[in-house]
């Protein structure tokens, strides 16, 4: 097993990884930007190195400074967390070249899944159902119109390098197509420096269901349960749960099989998440694969009892998976609410500043992952996630009531948070019934009532 591990990240996920290391007896090295000097991940680490000024490009994305730190501190493993360099194949490659274990999949798997169009083509070839659409990138309008013949209208144009809904456009009719294609390309070019786009059939009220998969370097690939992430705002997940409500076992197992196949065909290793859309008639379509640990991994940990981050580290160290398919039978129900430093009452505007009061909830069935504490200053430079609250219950109702109770007792003063938004969702009749599709937030919540 590793002696010392560097966490190339910040915030709650850096804290999460260090907790796993401490439980495994592995020493930790934190890297931080100048504004994160007082962050919990710095205080929790055995060693900490400042790697640059606040802007990510100069610090958390600064590969030379991160690798120099790894060298100077003599670590034998690097965990990238999520975001920042987690899905940068070049980083994975450099780490490996330095004879340091990268706690994640092989660079080539990251690269393949990073190219959304290529991934889609690969999956289609391997018999994983994908959303009908263009065979790869569409060169121009004629190309697009051809593809449209296969998908029908409405259709959606997506960026090949995309993610988070940027470079995404919907065309209702052939007339819309040229304009939509144009703006999608421009936005993709601006966002990713890559204007290539592809076309997919538009699905009405689909659910976002994802499958957690885990593969070791010895050929074992398992799925570790499913998560429903349909509560999204502008393609940003806000609430995740497991198991997905009102989903028949037949569909759940079909998703599991498809996800395992997806991982197998690309020779995947370590933890990954295969995202699907499931439409009203229970057809499932591959969307993309995230080649890293997810923000929402705790809901799976809550219902399975597994420690996914410890498992990641073991797999990176060459060990076999420490669990079998039987061990991952879900028990009860779990929810996660992402608490962001945003003001839901004014368009989720980021709300950086000093947290003057911070009293996290506790008691039965509640888990909190956070890097905040009283007096912590939330910097404006990064992702606005300040805490994750995970609730577990013997059934969905208990999990919901526990989450409600926990959010009501969560005291955060000095900044705005998304807690009022979550409380509204938890009290929403459609949510209570589990009737949630990816358009839930815009269709079922009156934001002004917040």
């Amino acid at each position, binding site marked *: 097993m590793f002696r010392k591990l560097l966490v190339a990240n910040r915030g709650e996920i850096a804290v999460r990884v260090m907790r796993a290391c401490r439980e495994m007896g592995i020493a930790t090295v934190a890297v931080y930007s*100048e504004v994160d000097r007082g962050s919990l991940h710095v205080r929790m680490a055995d060693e900490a190195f*400042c790697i640059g*000024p606040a802007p990510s490009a100069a610090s958390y994305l600064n590969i030379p*400074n991160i*690798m120099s730190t790894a060298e100077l501190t003599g670590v034998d493993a690097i965990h990238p967390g999520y975001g920042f360099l987690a899905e940068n194949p070049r980083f994975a490659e450099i780490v490996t070249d330095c004879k340091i274990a990268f706690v994640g999949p092989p660079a080539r798997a990251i690269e393949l899944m990073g190219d959304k169009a290529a991934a889609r083509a690969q999956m289609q070839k391997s018999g994983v159902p994908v959303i009908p659409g263009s065979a790869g990138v569409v060169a121009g309008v004629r190309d697009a119109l051809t593809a449209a013949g296969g998908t029908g209208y409405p259709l959606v144009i997506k960026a090949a390098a995309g993610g988070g809904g940027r470079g995404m456009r919907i065309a209702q009719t052939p007339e819309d197509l040229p304009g939509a294609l144009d703006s999608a390309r421009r936005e993709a070019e601006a966002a990713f420096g890559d204007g290539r786009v592809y076309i997919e059939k538009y699905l009405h009220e689909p659910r976002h269901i994802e499958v957690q998969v885990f593969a070791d370097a010895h050929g074992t690939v398992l799925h570790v349960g499913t998560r429903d992430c349909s509560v999204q705002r502008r393609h940003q997940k806000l609430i995740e749960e497991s198991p997905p409500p009102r989903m028949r076992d037949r569909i759940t197992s079909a998703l599991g099989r498809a996800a395992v196949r997806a991982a197998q065909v690309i020779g995947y290793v370590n933890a990954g998440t295969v995202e699907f859309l499931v439409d009203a008639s229970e057809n499932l379509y591959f969307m993309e694969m995230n080649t890293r640990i997810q923000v929402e991994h705790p809901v799976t940990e809550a219902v399975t009892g597994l420690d996914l981050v410890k498992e990641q580290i073991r797999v990176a160290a060459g060990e076999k998976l420490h669990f079998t398919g039987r061990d991952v039978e879900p028990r009860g129900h779990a929810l996660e609410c992402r608490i962001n430093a945003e003001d839901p009452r004014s368009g989720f505007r980021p709300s950086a500043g000093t947290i003057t009061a911070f009293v996290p909830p506790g008691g039965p069935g509640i888990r909190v992952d956070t890097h905040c504490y009283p007096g912590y200053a939330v910097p404006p430079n990064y992702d606005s996630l300040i805490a994750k609250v995970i609730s577990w219950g013997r059934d969905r109702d208990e999990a919901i009531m526990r989450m409600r109770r926990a959010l009501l007792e969560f005291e955060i003063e000095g900044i705005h948070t998304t807690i009022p938004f979550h409380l509204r969702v938890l009290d929403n009749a459609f949510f209570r019934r589990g009737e949630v599709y990816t358009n839930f937030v815009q269709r079922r919540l009156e934001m002004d009532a917040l």
Partner: protein
Amino acid sequence: MSERIDFDQVREVIRIAAEAELVELDVESPSLKVRVKRAAPDPARDARRAAETDTEAAAGAHGHLETIAAPMVGTFYRAGSPDAPAFVREGDLVSEGQVICMIEAMKLFNEIQAEKSGRIARVMVDNASPVEYGQPLFLLDVTARA
């Protein structure tokens, strides 16, 4: 709950101010900002100071030290090679652009140059020791001129 003030650094700044017989000394690094004011020997000015509340006026000609910080993570070297002489020593006058040390990162040796002219008041890091981004390497008296 938060990182503590490094009092050794504070004392060091005061010692430097005393050595240089400065009336006032400001030193600022990413994590610490220290301003020292020492009573001047001249009783006349002493009296003025007592009357004045505005410090600026009291501050006549005083030395001002600036830190030269590490621009990258790596290993700090004072000389170009083990047997070569150090690029600079305490007390040396340096001019803008002059190489004052090297930082080795990823097997690459990066020459670090002075961004301003002045006198090296202190070398704050031992040779061949690791430095993090923004770590103070030198104190430079920018009021000193050749």
